[in-house]
């Protein structure tokens, strides 16, 4: 087939849209690249198509959607006065709104309580800025002191536990030092003037009680208070 300028013009969009293949495409390109009339035409249409594909969608005016709704479904009724108020209340009567309001209320209660306001014995003076500041400061110090005391108590408890554990370990690892010696020269059932041999359990109990006494002596120093 001989590709004339008319044919090139007729198949221009087929070429640009990728509808020409193989020999047709090659013949088209061969003519279009060498023809002084077809080459600029191809270039200008190609750039035009590229430009149109790059053109962005026109932005829809926001009022258009409402105008369409008015036109298809009819104009919306405008309510005033009590009806408008009831509409607002009805709009708020949803589980989502109720949950949101409850959580906000709970947050406010916690916040106000932490600032020293008593709901059992409410006083107007508690809402003054200076009182709010002082109460907040007092609450902060109280919380700090309580947390320090709590940590200190925990340390004492852990210390007792670790000492007891250490003592048990010592007893298990060196039983021969604790067990009473029975000499071969001593006959069974005979006694001498030396201290009698003690059972192992009694020995451990004595050791534990000795450790507890030591700890009891140290406790006021560690916890920073007297123990009575």
């Amino acid at each position, binding site marked *: 087939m001989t590709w004339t300028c008319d044919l090139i013009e*007729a198949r221009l969009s087929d070429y640009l849209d990728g509808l020409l293949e193989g020999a047709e495409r090659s013949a088209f390109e061969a003519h279009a690249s060498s023809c002084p009339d077809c080459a600029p035409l191809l270039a*200008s249409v190609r*750039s035009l*198509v590229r430009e*149109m594909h790059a053109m*962005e969608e026109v932005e829809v005016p926001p009022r258009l*959607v409402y105008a369409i709704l008015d036109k*298809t479904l009819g104009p919306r009724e405008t309510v005033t006065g009590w009806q408008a108020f009831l509409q607002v209340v009805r709009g708020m009567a949803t589980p989502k709104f109720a949950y949101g309001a409850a959580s906000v209320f709970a947050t406010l209660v916690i916040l106000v309580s932490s600032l020293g306001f008593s709901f059992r014995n409410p006083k107007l003076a508690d809402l003054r800025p200076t009182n709010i500041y002082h109460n907040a400061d007092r609450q902060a110090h109280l919380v700090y002191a309580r947390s320090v005391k709590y940590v200190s108590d925990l340390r004492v408890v852990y210390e007792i536990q670790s000492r007891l554990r250490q003592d048990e370990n010592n007893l298990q690892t060196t039983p021969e030092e604790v067990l009473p010696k029975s000499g071969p020269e001593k006959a069974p059932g005979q006694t001498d003037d030396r201290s009698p041999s003690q059972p192992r359990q009694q020995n451990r109990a004595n050791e534990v009680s000795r450790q507890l006494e030591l700890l009891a002596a140290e406790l006021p120093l560690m916890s920073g208070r007297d123990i009575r």
Partner: protein
Amino acid sequence: MRRHTRRIYGICYRFTGNRTEAEDLAQEVYLRVYRTLGSYRSAHGGFATWVTSVTRNLLIDHYRRSKRDRVTDSLDDKMAVVENKESAGRRPDEQALLGELSLQVQNALTKLSPELREAVILRDLQQLEYAEIQTVLEVPEGTVKSRINRGRIELARILQQMGVRPA
């Protein structure tokens, strides 16, 4: 609804080149869709294709009724086109150039005959497939291809006469 509104308004604006007219026509399209929704069958193609057909028919009716755009020189219309703001990646000078070109292409479009104009709008601005355009225009595929081709060539020549050369 917003997706269809975007397409309908886009076609109306590209066809008329006038924002107010496009808004009125888009409302008319929705009214017609609302009234004739019962006549929609899946045989018409997708719903979007059917809505596009309704839009096209209304535009042709409007064109025939008014016949105004046959004598209107759209180049005198200096209405600013508010384009979508999804072009943040482009440089300001490129954006300005593209905006200017878009305006000039839009102006050149209104000089095309309605048959060629609607074919080019559906193909190159709405990115519809040939089969969809065939359904919308209710003409054979060969006619669709021919109209798109002639429309593009005619549009390129109009732009050249206007002294515009798309890059």
